[in-house]
């Protein structure tokens, strides 16, 4: 018996409806994935832009705070200005004492160090300040 002896109609495989579904599903998933990816890319792009704007806003805030820091330093120095202090003292009626008495207390004499020994706490901040 040879292969040609088979009746053609009897041996032909039948395409059932169930076997056609796998072809549609991946396509649908692919299309869905493309759509999701498309929106994801858009979303990420928007997020990135938002982050960039946020970063820019923060940088501006940092710059503003740094400027504020120096504004306060200047204001502090101005408030300490001897001329201002003298005028304020005169306004509230302070006068120099007629008699100045100096009391020496042993062990608390003012030490005179080199320039690097002065205002050490403040100079420690030098490399930290904006």
């Amino acid at each position, binding site marked *: 018996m040879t292969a040609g002896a088979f009746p053609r109609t009897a041996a032909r495989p039948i395409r059932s409806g169930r076997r056609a579904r796998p072809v549609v599903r991946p396509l649908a998933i692919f299309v869905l994935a493309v759509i999701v990816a498309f929106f994801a890319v858009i979303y990420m792009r928007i997020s990135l832009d938002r982050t960039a704007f946020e970063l820019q806003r923060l940088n501006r805030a940092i710059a503003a705070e740094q400027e504020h820091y120096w504004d306060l330093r200047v204001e502090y*120095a101005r408030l300490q200005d*001897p*001329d201002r202090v003298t005028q304020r003292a005169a306004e509230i009626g302070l006068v120099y004492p007629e008699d*100045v008495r100096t009391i020496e207390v042993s062990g608390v004499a003012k030490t005179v160090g080199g*320039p*690097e020994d002065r205002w050490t706490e403040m*100079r420690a901040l*030098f*490399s930290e300040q904006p």
Partner: protein
Amino acid sequence: MRRPQFRFGDLRVVALGLVFVLAWGGIGYRLFRVQGANAAELAQLGFDQRLRHEQIEAKRGTIYDRDGVELAVTIYGSSLAADPSLVEEPARAAAALAPVVDADYVEMVTRLEGDGRFVYLARGLEHDVAEEARRIIEEEDLVGFIFEEEPLRIYPSGALAAPVIGLTRLDDGSGVEGIEAVMDTELAGRPGKRIVERDRAGRAIPQAEFLLEPSVPGSDVVLTLDRELQYAAERSLQAGIDRTDAIGGAVVAIDPRTGEILAMVSLPSFDGSDRSQLDPATIRNRAISDVFEPGSTLKAVTVAAALEEGIVRPDTPFETPREIEISGETYSDHGYNPPVMTVSDIVAKSSNVGTIQIQRRLGNEAHYRYLDAFGLGRTASIDFQGEATGRLEHVTDWCGPACGASAAIGYGIGATPLQMAEIYATLANDGEWVEPHIVSEIIAPDGSSLVTEPRRREVVSADTARTIRSMLRGVVERGTGRRAALDDFPVGGKTGTTNKFNVESGEYSDTDTIAWFIGIAPIDDPAIVVAVVLDTPRGELPDGTDLQFGGASAAPIFAEIAETALHQLGVAPTHDADG
């Protein structure tokens, strides 16, 4: 066969085709030009429109006083500018803005009515002023105004020590006077570079900024000045100028042990924050740039040289006639002096004749050697711009005995107040010269610092210096400098008065003088040297004392400053009950 006939419709088709061919040809040509031949050039043009190379300004360093108080600070301020072609109502805009930014209304209107596309209306505005101007521009709906951010140099203490600290230029912020100029390289820092992508409106596009090179901030400069003492010195000198109606004056206060300049005053002065009032005459620092004949204050050097050479002792007697003639020049004393005086009395009474007698015994060569060793004829410090060297001719150029006699009493020699303070600081520091300096240290942005180490050298022995100091004490206790005395501290010093030399006429004035007092306090353990000079003091005290003399006009200024300084420095009173 029938020949095809020409039809009008065919012509239209041909014409249309031709139009299409030309159009497509044109497009093709343009495409070739844009994408091919000129592609690189056009691409660069596009980049250039969006990308801008910008310089990142380096923040200028701060100048501090010895206690870390800011004397000069850079903050970011604003400039108000305008595009006149866009400003619709210049008069209304100027009326609203001029008072806020402290500008002249007429000047602002003139600028707004100009033809240009950009004019500055106000520069160096601080934040609050700029914000107020912005608010007004919004409220008044003004168009064509621009705010530009720019570094702004602030001097928190106003005019305090202004001639010392100096000034910066408004445009590039570089130093032009004083410490700002001398230390400009250190203070300025190094600008950086960046590329910024901007949109059509000129706004920076986020995440499109590329840093090529970061800016490096300038170093901070710490001065030896004490702000409180500087203020006290300025007040005292100003009061002295007001009292004597002097043209101006200068004060230098030095710690003789370290060479640190604690105060340096030059009046009249200016306020670096208010440039509208700037007068070139007030910008110069008289303490280092004005050269005066030191007069009797230089007698200390003559006597110190003679002591050091072993030619005289404090009790060595000298004949002191009323007048002495040398090489045709006649020298005399002010007021009465006994016919014989010791060296101590000669110093105390400031006898010209006696000092000339000492100098003649010393000789010109030795005298010159000491004048040079004490620092005359050369700049005292490297910390100042435009410091004068003074005037000290080489001894080979001296005119003989007469020049020596004049030099002995402080004539024919020119010195700045800083140089004279330097001489007395050497005597106060047991004869050791310490280089005067005003820059204490330079602090780099990383916190590392470079501390000034002043040069030192011995000029005279400690014994000679102590002997001279005891003589200077006599000047204040029983001589011409009584008005320099303090209740709580023993002080010593020397008065000096010279007739003012008129450079234009080449003659000495009969009426105008230069009045000096240079003192050391406490004289037995020196903590400070103060040199005071008044230019052309006038008038007299209620008791008839002529204020043209240093003992009457400059000595009280010294007393005020020295007392404040000693309290400020924490020096305990050492004056005993007997004085």
